[in-house]
């Protein structure tokens, strides 16, 4: 029966992440953006929350919490409220762990999951996006060619989260024609011949998140390093989970923008009264509240389809189109509400707009 009420356990997760965002994320956010670096010790602290890969089954040393995209949406929103870049960093381990849980062979689960059940932040990440203007997950330009029982990979990747320190890359490449079904995932160690990891990329936003580009020149991948073996992965479904994660981060930063706008609009005087008492400003803020609620119900509903076992491409795609557009609108209006002050990097709103512009591009950078 229809319900919009998180469970007690989910509420507890929300509260935990909200606290974490308040103490470890938001206060350090602007400085981290200026320095293009995560706060010292952040990755380890985020790892100790124990939430990013809580879905790893107990049999493999994990917490064995029931996988739920809805729960993921709830926690990702709180991360986004704290800081989008730190949120992506926090969720990064799931980029590798969850596809292994879902599609790995028994050998692969045994080999790779221990990396994600230890006490230190795992040095592993995934590479989906490519540096082309018409990046299309259904038509990747990184190509995997069968050779000697394994594969050879060639192509370029970009926006690989935490790539500067990653020891292991899960690289998505196309084996055949266009279509989700022809995409496979390959484990490539940093030391692999033919793999070049670029310097840290210079991004418009999420600057404190270290991202890199990869160049693959005939990188050999042995049979056992093809995720899922012959069966491969369900890349379409992985992308659905990714969309939920990204939309939820977008909702979080939108909420940050709205809260900041409300505070500012009530304190800033013009023409003898707070600007929040003028309809032009008040309506922008009302629209923020409306769209945040709308984005959230769309995200929960799409996530619920995933939890029912569906691939949910249509639901997550519509949800993401909606939140991409509206997160941009909300953060843009937050700058507008602050006027000239919104333009200055002494205030957080312009940074939120820079983060928000990225969501139309960030496919595959986060996973729940």
């Amino acid at each position, binding site marked *: *029966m*229809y*319900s*919009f*009420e*998180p*469970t007690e356990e*989910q509420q507890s997760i929300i509260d935990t992440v909200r606290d974490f965002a308040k103490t470890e994320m938001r206060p350090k956010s602007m400085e981290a953006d200026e320095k293009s670096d995560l706060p010292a010790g952040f990755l380890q602290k985020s790892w100790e929350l124990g939430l990013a890969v809580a879905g790893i089954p107990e049999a493999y040393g994990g917490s064995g919490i029931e996988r739920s995209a*809805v729960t993921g949406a709830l926690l990702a929103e709180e991360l986004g409220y704290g800081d989008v870049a730190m949120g992506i960093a926090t969720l990064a381990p799931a980029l590798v762990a969850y596809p292994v849980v879902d599609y790995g062979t028994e050998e692969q689960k045994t080999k790779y999951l221990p990396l994600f059940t230890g006490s230190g932040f795992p040095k592993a990440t995934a590479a989906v996006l490519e540096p082309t203007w*018409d*990046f*299309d*997950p*259904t*038509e990747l330009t990184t190509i995997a060619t069968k050779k000697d029982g394994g594969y050879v990979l060639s192509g370029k990747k970009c926006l690989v989260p935490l790539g500067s320190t990653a020891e292991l890359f899960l690289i998505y490449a196309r084996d055949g024609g266009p279509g*989700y079904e022809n995409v496979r995932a390959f484990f490539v160690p940093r030391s692999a011949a033919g793999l070049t990891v670029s310097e840290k990329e210079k991004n418009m936003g999420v600057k404190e998140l270290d991202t890199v580009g990869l160049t693959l020149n005939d990188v050999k991948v042995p049979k056992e390093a093809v995720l899922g073996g012959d069966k491969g992965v369900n890349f*379409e479904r992985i*992308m659905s989970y990714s969309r939920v994660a990204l939309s939820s981060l977008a909702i979080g930063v939108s909420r940050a923008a*709205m809260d900041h706008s*409300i505070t500012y*609009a*009530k304190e800033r005087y013009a023409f003898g009264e707070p600007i*929040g*008492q003028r*309809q032009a400003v*008040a*309506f922008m*803020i*009302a*629209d923020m*509240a*409306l769209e945040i*609620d*709308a*984005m959230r*119900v*769309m995200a*929960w*509903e799409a996530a*619920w389809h995933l939890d029912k076992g569906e691939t949910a*491409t*249509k639901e997550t*795609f*519509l*949800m993401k*189109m*909606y939140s991409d557009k509206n997160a941009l609108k909300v953060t843009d209006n937050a700058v507008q509400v602050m006027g000239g002050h919104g333009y200055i990097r002494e205030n957080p709103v312009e940074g939120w707009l820079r983060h928000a512009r990225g969501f*139309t591009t960030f496919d595959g950078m986060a996973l729940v």
Partner: protein
Amino acid sequence: MIDFEHHPVVQQTGMMISQMAESMMRPAAREVDEHEHTDPTAYINFMWDVMKSGAGGAAATQFTGGPKKKKDEDPNAPKKPGFGNVLGAVSIEMMSWGDAGIYLATPVAGLGGAAVAAAGTDEQKERFLKRFQEGDKPIWGAMAITEPGCGSDSAAITTTATKDGDFYVLNGHKIFVTSGKRAIADSNGFVVVWATVDKNVGRAGIKSFVVEAGTPGMILLGVEKKHGIRASDTAQIVFENCRVPKENLLGSAEVDLNKGFKGVMATFDATRPAVAASAIGIGRAALEFIQAEFAKQGIKPRYGTNPHKLTARERDLMDMEANLKAAWLLTLKAAWMSDNKKHNNLEASICKAKAGLAVTQITQKAVELMGPLGYSREILLEKWMRDAKINDIFEGTQQINMLIIARRVLGYSRDQLK
């Protein structure tokens, strides 16, 4: 637990209404639109039987919105399911998918009933609402608030109610009364009239009075010619020394300067999601038409690809789908909150503001997408655009609802944010 699956009763009811909408409403839709002010008689009689079978009781009391005080609960009334408002939203959406104007012609207590349920005493509820569940002839309820000089500023109404012995004497002019003619001229119904007992105290003086059909001094001036929802009668009613028994004043006669007319305003928390639901039904009709056209033309919308590779048509379709879905989920959320006794003043305005605008845009885009075919009165598409528009206006315009949201979110009073 967060869940997007309807209760089986809601699903079954929805399916039945969907079938009725297809078989009874759609075939009559164009005819009643072309010949404004004709009655969809077969539908009305059919629905009257349905209402009497028990649905009427639920329909009359479901729109009470917000937390209910225990003492108001009638021990004899049918047990309200914990999904009454959600059921209402689904039902209204389905009926409006059939035809929004014909839906408004359904013989129910409507907004008048909602006012009675929200503000009336138990005795008044019995006296006024029982008629909707018995008798051979269909009955309608209506509510009269708007006047020629005031709409959004409902606190500025000038209709007066002057105490005279055991009566109140009403004088004034009401317009835009949905189902007004059917309520007071075509049936043994009633109209709930907002009038002020004391102009000097502003909104605190506004009370609602049940004026039953046949009361002398209540004059039907006529019905409007409209852009859409033409099957719904929109009446102008004048009150000339209309004597109304004091027992017909809903709730307390006391002028409470602190409470004002909050009680009746709270009705909107329930009726706004209902109007949003109606808008969405129309929007869905238009959307499904376009989806069917895509299928006919062999166009498969490519969800999951790079959005910039989509054709303009695919993009337009997906925008329509996403906006309609967002509006519908928000509406169900507001209804769910009512069912769970959660104060939903903010959410009611959010879903109404979203649905009103989204469906206006969706139905307008749908006509555009069909080119010359969409412009023709041979298909229902252009009618749906005309039917949709009113939803962004009545029961609180989009601008008023945005104002309510803004005040809530900013924590401003009516005086601080005008």
